[in-house]
């Protein structure tokens, strides 16, 4: 399996639109890295450049230490799984899977052995003679995976491979990909805009926006320590609650308008980076699970809010709250909830706040 290194990759389609700008990072051999971001953020362009389907304007791409940015796709020893499967409709499953090996001149017996092995790994043993049109969406995606597997390439590239599948199938295929990757120890680069896929699959996540890398870290670090406001809002469902106000050293607290103040329990505004923001505007991010009804957390300071809607999803409930003109969401246990329309008091868990500079959007380190 191979490592991948990107070194100052830039690609512009027109002078005005830079699809990918100055991207550098390294993916170690055997790692599964997810490129996450909204449509048009440049993640697919980046993957296509690694595949050789597009050429970067500047920068280097190294696979296992070898520069490949000027090589054709077939000379890079990579395999790619496409969103719409891209199976050859006029070939059987076995022919689809063996096509790449045939082109490389592998003896027929060896090709057949590899195809059978991959088919049994993916549960496609009985379907080898069928055409893609006779397969379900999940089966087609498994064939697409199998076509990549039999090649035994240095790097697997997956471009939103599950987005054409329905939700239950997506969940099971997600697990299947994770299982395969761990079992075979292959290097995978996985592009998605689905944060659940990113969180569950990735050993590392590369969050991208507007052609630039926003943060590269493990899924939990990206979730728990987002580098900026974009990353904070990109992950989590329901999304993070953002409150903008003036930082008061006393407490410290966040002074919101309408006379409300949010105690920032656990933060120290006397030292470190946060001290320089005293009496200035900051944005505080609170994940829905950081909010609770005050009766469940009586030791914390209470804030009044109007309970508008309750969304029960079985094991938990989402409380949609109004605090002045602000809309907040809290994730709470679904039992014994107040009626919608009533006035409630909410509280914040200590050490659960993220503080951002509203001008730059960057995280303000509250631990220093």
């Amino acid at each position, binding site marked *: 399996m191979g490592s991948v290194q990107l070194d100052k990759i830039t690609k512009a389609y027109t002078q005005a639109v830079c699809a990918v700008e100055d991207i550098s990072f390294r993916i170690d051999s055997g790692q599964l890295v997810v490129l996450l971001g909204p449509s048009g953020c440049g993640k697919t362009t980046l993957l296509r450049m690694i*595949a050789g389907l597009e050429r970067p304007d500047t920068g280097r791409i190294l696979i296992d230490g070898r520069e490949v940015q000027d090589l054709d796709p*077939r000379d890079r020893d990579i395999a*790619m799984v*496409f969103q719409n499967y891209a199976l050859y409709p006029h070939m059987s499953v076995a022919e689809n899977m063996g096509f790449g090996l045939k*082109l490389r001149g592998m003896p027929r017996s060896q090709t057949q052995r590899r195809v059978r092995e991959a088919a049994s790994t993916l549960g496609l043993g009985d379907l080898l003679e069928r055409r893609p049109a006779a397969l379900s969406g999940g089966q087609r995606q498994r064939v697409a995976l199998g076509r990549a597997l039999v090649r035994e390439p240095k790097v697997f590239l997956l471009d939103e491979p599950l987005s054409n599948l329905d939700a239950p199938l997506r969940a099971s295929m997600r697990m299947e990909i994770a299982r395969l990757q761990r079992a075979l120890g292959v290097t995978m680069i996985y592009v998605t805009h689905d944060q659940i896929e990113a969180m569950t699959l990735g050993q590392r996540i590369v969050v991208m926006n507007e052609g630039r890398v926003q943060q590269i870290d493990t899924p939990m670090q990206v979730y728990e320590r987002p580098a900026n406001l974009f990353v904070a809002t990109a992950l989590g469902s329901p999304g993070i609650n953002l409150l903008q106000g003036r930082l008061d050293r006393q407490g410290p607290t966040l002074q919101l308008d309408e006379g409300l103040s949010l105690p920032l329990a656990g933060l120290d505004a006397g030292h470190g980076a946060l001290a320089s923001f005293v009496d200035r505007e900051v944005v505080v991010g609170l994940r829905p699970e950081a909010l609770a009804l005050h009766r469940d957390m009586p030791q914390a300071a209470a804030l009044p809010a109007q309970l508008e809607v309750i969304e029960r999803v079985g094991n938990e409930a989402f409380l949609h709250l109004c605090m002045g003109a602000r809309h907040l969401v809290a994730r709470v246990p679904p039992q014994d909830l107040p009626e919608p329309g009533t006035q409630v008091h909410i509280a914040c868990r200590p050490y659960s706040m993220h503080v951002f500079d509203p001008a730059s959007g960057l995280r303000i380190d509250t631990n220093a």
Partner: protein
Amino acid sequence: MVLGGLIGLAGCALFPLLWMLSVSLMPPGAADTLPPPLLPQHPTLANYRVLFAQDGMGRYVFNSLLVASVTTLVSLGLNLGAGYAFAKLHFVGRERLFQLLVGALVLPAQVTMMPLFLLLKWMGLVNTYVGVMAPMLVTVFGIFIVRQYARSLPDELLEAARIDGAGEGWIFLRVVVPLIKPIMVTLAVFTFLASWNDFMWPLIILTGQEHYTLPVALAALSREHAQDTGTMMAGALVTTLPVLVLFLVLQRHYIQGLLLGSVKG
């Protein structure tokens, strides 16, 4: 009501063809009486014997078959390649060149005949099979319908083949051609029919009888046998029957291909 109308129209279309068959089976002179008979009283193949034994019809059938078949095969290769390239390959000036080609569609064929003739004369191709075939070997219409159809192929399919290790020629032959079969059949039928039925161009470019195709030979025949309706009808039948059968056998693919080309483009 509608069905009756359709049957009536079909009858109107079929009647001349059936009468042609009927007259070709009448003895010499039998068709020239008044009122003209609908069916032969004593069916005979005498007209066909005259046609093939005295008038050398076999040679013209061979010429037409050769010209139409080679034209069809070569034009398939060239039109498919060009249409696919315009649809899926990126090269400098692709859109401009295609617009220029489509623009050339407005030129009536007759306008191009004189310069084409002079060009082929300069190349020494007058009164040759190649000279007859040349104008139909690549057509803007052929390139256009192949391009429209090939555009419906997903790019990912070609990219998957490139990643699998295929070169562009291999992708064209092993991935693209099998997937554009409907438009291939359409184009093949269309080219074969057009080439087989073409009268004007072979009449211009061919000076010797040995290269005559069936429509040109039929015209010569009508001059030679002006009084012999039976032989002329036998010649007309030999000219129309092969393409009629070909069209009837392949009409499903033909219409399907035309529709797919237009709708998917």
